[in-house]
């Protein structure tokens, strides 16, 4: 399978800091992925975009409470989208545990971009090396 993998990147909150998702998006694009950035979106909008864009992986940038991200994951599953989800942003350890319990991989501040790109490859069924 050589087709390009597609990743949806969404911000779950109304906090507009964009530094995190923008460096992640660039690294993923440089890593060969197609990245669809939809910015600050509600849970319903994230689900709709994941359906419309038929993505292979969903990335959530979390600048707010973990509960909103948890709801997004649940809503994706309820809509029949079984694609993996990974997340980044200000996710304190207690919130990280909650997301990981839902099967979400969490990349907090300080995560290195090559590790994030490698995770995206693994989560979309590509071999680890580029």
């Amino acid at each position, binding site marked *: 399978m050589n087709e390009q993998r597609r990743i949806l990147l969404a911000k779950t*909150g109304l*906090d*507009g800091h964009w530094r995190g998702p923008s460096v992640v998006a660039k690294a993923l694009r440089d890593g060969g992925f197609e990245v669809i950035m939809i910015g600050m979106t509600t849970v319903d909008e994230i689900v709709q975009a994941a359906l419309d864009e038929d993505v292979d992986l969903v990335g959530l940038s979390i600048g707010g409470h973990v509960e*909103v991200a948890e709801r997004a994951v649940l809503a994706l599953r309820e809509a029949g989208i079984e694609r993996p989800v990974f997340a980044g942003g*200000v996710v304190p350890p207690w919130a990280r545990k909650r997301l990981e319990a839902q099967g979400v991989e969490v990349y907090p501040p300080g995560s290195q971009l090559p590790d994030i790109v490698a995770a995206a490859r693994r989560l979309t069924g590509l071999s680890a090396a580029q």
Partner: protein
Amino acid sequence: MRQFDQQRWLRKKWETLSEIPLRAHYGPEDIPAEHLARLASPPGQAPFLRGAYPEGFRSKPWRIFQLSGFGKPEDENERIKFLLAHGETGFLMEHDRNTADHLFNVDHPEVQARSADVGLTGAVMQSVRDIAICLDGIPIESTYGHAGGAVVQHAPFALAGYWTVAKRRGLDLTRLAGTGQSDYFLTYLGCVTKQQVPTRAGLRLNVDIMEFCNRHLPKWVPISIAGYNGADTGLNAYQELGSVFANAVEYLDEVQRRGSMEMEAAAKAVGGMNFRCCMDIFEEASKLRAARAMWHQLLTQRYGIRNEKVMNLRIHVVTAGSSMAYQQPLNNIARGTLMGLAAVLGGAQSLGVSGYDEALSVPSEHAHQMSVRIQQILQNETNVCGVVDPLGGSYYVEALTADLIGKGWEFFEEIQQRGGFLECLDNGWLHAKAHQNQNADMDAQASGERTIVGVTDFVEDDAPFEVDGFMGVDDSYQVAIERLEELRRTRDAQAAGIALKQVHAACKGSDNVMPAMMAALEADVSLGEIGDVFREVFGDWDTPITA
């Protein structure tokens, strides 16, 4: 996992974080002649390279000034009182980002869709009643306050609310000291909200605030340009300098165009600025010294101002949030101390030290207290307050300061040639500059060129001292909904309606919006109603980025 590596160390490229190459040592030949002239004036005298005041911290220690806020207005009130009790010497009100930045009431569908986020990073303040709760028992006549309103479109509401509370307490506004922010770097560069008035409309609001303060609140710092927000988005030290002054000329040119206030007063009003200090201690201290000299140069050369008393730039510093690590968070206590020291060596007038849990959450009570204690230790135990501009005359620091001034003006000129600061926000040029540096920083970390202890190197799988991140409170949204309902039920609906119409008329016309805003707050007009007026009259900024 990377550890210390002798070969890597010996291959290290020595340069500042702005990529200014460094030599192993500096001498007198490295200080340019025109810089020696700046250096010849003592602190407190033009061009203020060496300090804003002749006696420096001896006459007045820097203000301990911490960002604070979360939850309900009473939670924020409690935290502010806690900080003041532990020695904070000014206080800073954070408003809930979801509602305040967007001028939404809490029952707006965008907010309701994320109700759990409400109150996470600031208290919800939808009317003057909420602001009064947040300020309850705080002596604002004697304590320097920051009313919030960091985002441009929010500032008129936040300021009018604070001043209305002061008026109700019978205070004389002409004697009230404090500040807001209304910052372009946050609003249009670093934290681009989902909805925002366009940059031109924002300029009008900011100059209205300046004029209003000039007339009614002469001790208030009406706006504070916050290079911090540009720098923490990615701009390097000299880009921060250049863009801060490119921002300042937008305000000053507009005042000149209107002709409604003296340029000296305008210079004073814009001359309280906010910079970031990150981990490159000498570059950051040099940057603050450079900023003072550049401000003086700008005011004299571009505006012909001669009165020295209005030209000493006063500087607030916040230590870089982005330098605070998620991993091994107690290491951040050392980082906060060092970045704070850079601010002090550069001669800042006030300082906020980021919490050691900055990368995890808003500060816990303990992290907040620690930020105050770090500053008290610097002030009281280190003797750094005894001598003004202790780095002055260092071959290295003077060469670096001169270099930053030169590169800062180059960046300023580039912005001017590209149509000015507002244009460079509208078309995304500044965002692209910041993004370039963001990527370069991440690449340097990944390649081993840049070491962040506990993050890129010296990593531990199990941190021995776990910090879990502050959890806040969970009833902010519900209480805000109840208070909004109560406001609508109990206010004089007719008076609120009339006041809101007057805000609408002022926005549509060319009158200063602040008198109508004051009347609106007095009449219990809510945040979201002001937002609806702004959205209708000013429209929405077409953001150049999607992230």
